[in-house]
């Protein structure tokens, strides 16, 4: 997975570090999950309550043997990591270890209870939606050479405006356009200040977050709290794709979602194609990599950057609208809770590619959803600590496994035509 060619000695040291990680995982699995299970059997429910073509049997496993089997696989991987190593598949195997750990954790958590697999996966995809959209905003901006830290601010502006507009118009689609407008407005401020006035991109990004937080919180207390009719948006409802949504397990997860989830999937695929297969994408990337060369062949660098940042505003505005038009259905102060930053992390983890960012967003969505799913199971871990999961995952992924990033070469540098 790593693009850099690593010297054998360094590669060995790196794999041994991964081995230490595997051993830590193994210790937790054996020391906690195998010894302190609350019941003997864990039940995974594979059916959706809303009916499907045919019923699947519930998956019932014995907790301790299951955890021991998973531990054994981790032990084998760790042994290989310390001896011969996995070579080019090293990072992939760390992912496998993490996956085994999550499976063991779920088995332990579901002991003497029922865990709805459909609910877990469906929620993960839904929660990945704003993160993926925010990450797309980051990708399109940074590929053009403008760092967009302000995704969180665009989310808040989009969520607020979408709520108000949808309440006034009683139509989620018009509300969505309101959200897009707000996202583009913040993007316009980012573009103007960084591209035209050449202010520091990270500083402007952080300032725009403070600004959007301040304005939306201010208007929320000052206007919305006194006029609840302005804060009761009409929401998108879940759409069931005929036939496909009847397929057990896959149907409810992928084909019975809100229109925003489908829109996000289409956006990811379209942007990925457009960035890497079209002339538009090549031009945009050239502006981010080597603006002077792009300028020489006649590409308008500043205009391309402007358009890229504004397009990012469209994605982030839709992502923000997800909160008020899909998930929550009401604006509240700082309701996005740092997901804009997680979108940023998803973009970095996905290495500036839309599909990669979507994959990372799924991991974060899963980590987000797991806290909610486990609260329903009454797991003896405080909810505050469970909620740290997505943030811990981000640090681990960004710090431990991904190695050093190679951002677009001209990222963060204002361009002055000579």
């Amino acid at each position: 997975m790593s693009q850099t060619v690593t010297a054998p000695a360094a590669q060995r040291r790196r794999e041994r570090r991964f081995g230490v990680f595997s051993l830590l995982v193994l210790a937790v699995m054996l020391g906690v999950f195998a010894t302190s299970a609350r019941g003997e059997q864990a039940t995974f429910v594979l059916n959706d309550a809303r009916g499907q073509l045919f019923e699947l049997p519930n998956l019932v496993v014995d907790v301790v043997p299951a955890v021991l089997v998973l531990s054994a696989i981790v032990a084998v991987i760790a042994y290989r990591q310390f001896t011969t190593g996995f070579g080019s598949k090293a990072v992939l195997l760390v992912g496998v270890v993490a996956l085994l750990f999550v499976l063991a954790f779920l088995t332990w958590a579901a002991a003497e209870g029922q865990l709805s697999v459909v609910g877990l996966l469906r929620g993960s995809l839904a929660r990945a939606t704003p993160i993926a959209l925010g990450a797309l905003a980051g990708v399109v901006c940074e590929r053009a050479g403008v760092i967009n830290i302000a995704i969180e601010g665009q989310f808040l502006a989009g969520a607020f405006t979408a709520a108000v507009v949808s309440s006034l118009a009683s139509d989620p689609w018009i509300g969505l356009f309101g959200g897009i407008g707000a996202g583009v407005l913040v993007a316009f401020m980012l573009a103007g200040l960084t591209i035209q006035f050449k202010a520091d991109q990270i500083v402007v990004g952080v300032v725009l977050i403070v600004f959007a937080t301040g304005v939306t919180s201010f208007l929320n207390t000052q206007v919305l709290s006194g006029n609840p009719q302005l804060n009761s948006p009409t929401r998108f409802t879940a759409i069931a794709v005929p036939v496909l949504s009847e397929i057990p397990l896959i149907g409810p997860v992928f084909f019975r979602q809100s229109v925003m989830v489908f829109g996000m999937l289409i956006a990811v695929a379209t942007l990925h194609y457009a960035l890497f297969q079209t002339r538009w994408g090549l031009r945009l990337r050239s502006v981010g990599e080597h603006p002077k060369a792009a300028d020489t062949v006649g590409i308008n660098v500043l205009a391309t950057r402007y358009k890229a940042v504004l397009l990012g505003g469209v994605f982030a505005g839709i992502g923000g609208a997800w909160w008020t038009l899909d998930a929550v259905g009401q604006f509240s102060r700082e309701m996005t809770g740092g997901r804009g930053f997680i979108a940023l992390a998803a973009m970095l983890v996905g290495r500036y590619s839309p599909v990669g960012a979507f994959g990372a967003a799924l991991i974060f969505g899963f980590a987000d959803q797991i806290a909610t799913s486990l609260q329903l199971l009454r797991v003896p871990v405080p909810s505050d600590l469970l909620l740290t999961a997505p943030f811990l995952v981000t640090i681990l992924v960004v710090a431990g496994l991904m190695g050093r990033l190679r951002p677009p070469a001209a990222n963060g540098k204002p361009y002055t035509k000579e």
Partner: protein
Amino acid sequence: MSDEQGPREPTPEEPGHPPDVPSPGDGAVAVSEEELAQAEIEAAKEREEEAAGVTLDATFSQRLVAALTGTSVVVTVLAFVSALVIGAFIIALSEDAVRESLGYFFARPTDAVQASLEAVGSAYLALLQGSLVGIPQLSETLVSATPLILTGLAVAVPLRAGLFNIGAEGQFVAGGMVAGLIGFALTGLPMLVHLPLALLAGIIAGGIYGWIPGVLKARTGAHEVISTIMLNNIGLLVSGYLISTTLFRRPDRADPISRSVEESARFPRLVWWEPSLRVNASLLVALALAVAIFWLVERSTRGFELNAVGMNPRAATAAGMSPGNTVILAMTTGGAMAGAAGAAVILGLQYRLTIGFSAGLGFDGITVALLGRGRIGGTVAAGILIGALKAGGRNMQAQTGTSLELALVIQALIIVFIAAPGLVRAIFRIKADDLQTAQVSKGWGG
């Protein structure tokens, strides 16, 4: 450095190069040889003064403001004015009376204008009165400024090394939690032992919490912006959990509120004969730490390395410095300052830990440090200024019902205008081209 006109006259680029002379064709007055020579001498003198870092003819306040922003007085003032004007529009639009009168704006426009003026005028008057007019108000300004100076330093020191520490909020929480724990868990100690111990514990806790992203950056290349934001969220969640455990929670209360800090660990009030004035000794600690940081960053060898790494890490490496260690030092020092801020708030003001006790003070540190342009003296001044804005904002909310969040909006607007001096120039059509654009932080690659 600056003349009566405000913006600096364009000075010639090269020494010995004659200053620009307006040609008679432009309709300007022809300049005699003597005047030319005189101008050249003055320009040379100006360059010398600039090189020495001293400006003889600038008044103290001009130098203060210049230190505050690194740009000319005019841009700073205009940035404030612009921020206040936009803030005024937001106040006006959020007022119910104004929005109602806007409905019949074209029938009777005076109604809307009058309602706007009333709302804006009373809000800004309350803002000013609450921060500067009177001894109690000044005391509140200093109380608000104390943690802001420290969190400002927490962002400013890493900024000098080219790092953007957004984690002051989490480091603040870490410092406050540990300082509070030492403050109420130990009993029977004399104040001379207990208070410094609690303060030191807070500083160390904040330092450790800042050390983590520093090490991650130095050893793995994980970008500090991402890791500090994640650590903020983790810190807030974990502190929320800890406060509700028996270790911290008050035994007689069910809601999450910690036990109270012992008297012996509280910062004494500076004006002890007047109990309503809350200004306390933590202000002195903040100023002393600012002096220490000034020495570290501007005078010491490590500080030199820190600045060198911030300006050009490759050159610093070539000169035999270790950017990795400098990154760790800068982040740890920054974290320690934010930890001190947390300790100052808990031991000097709140005396107990509640959920969300950081109240965004760490994030305000970003504003403060950027307003101070990463300079130590500038950060202290900016801390006092934002402190005044906060104290005034509280008064505004109490008196006129305009929500406190407006202070946040104005803060952000001020920084926008200061970070992009070109914008202010464009709005007010200032021609002077001596205002450099601010590139203080670095991209992901740095």
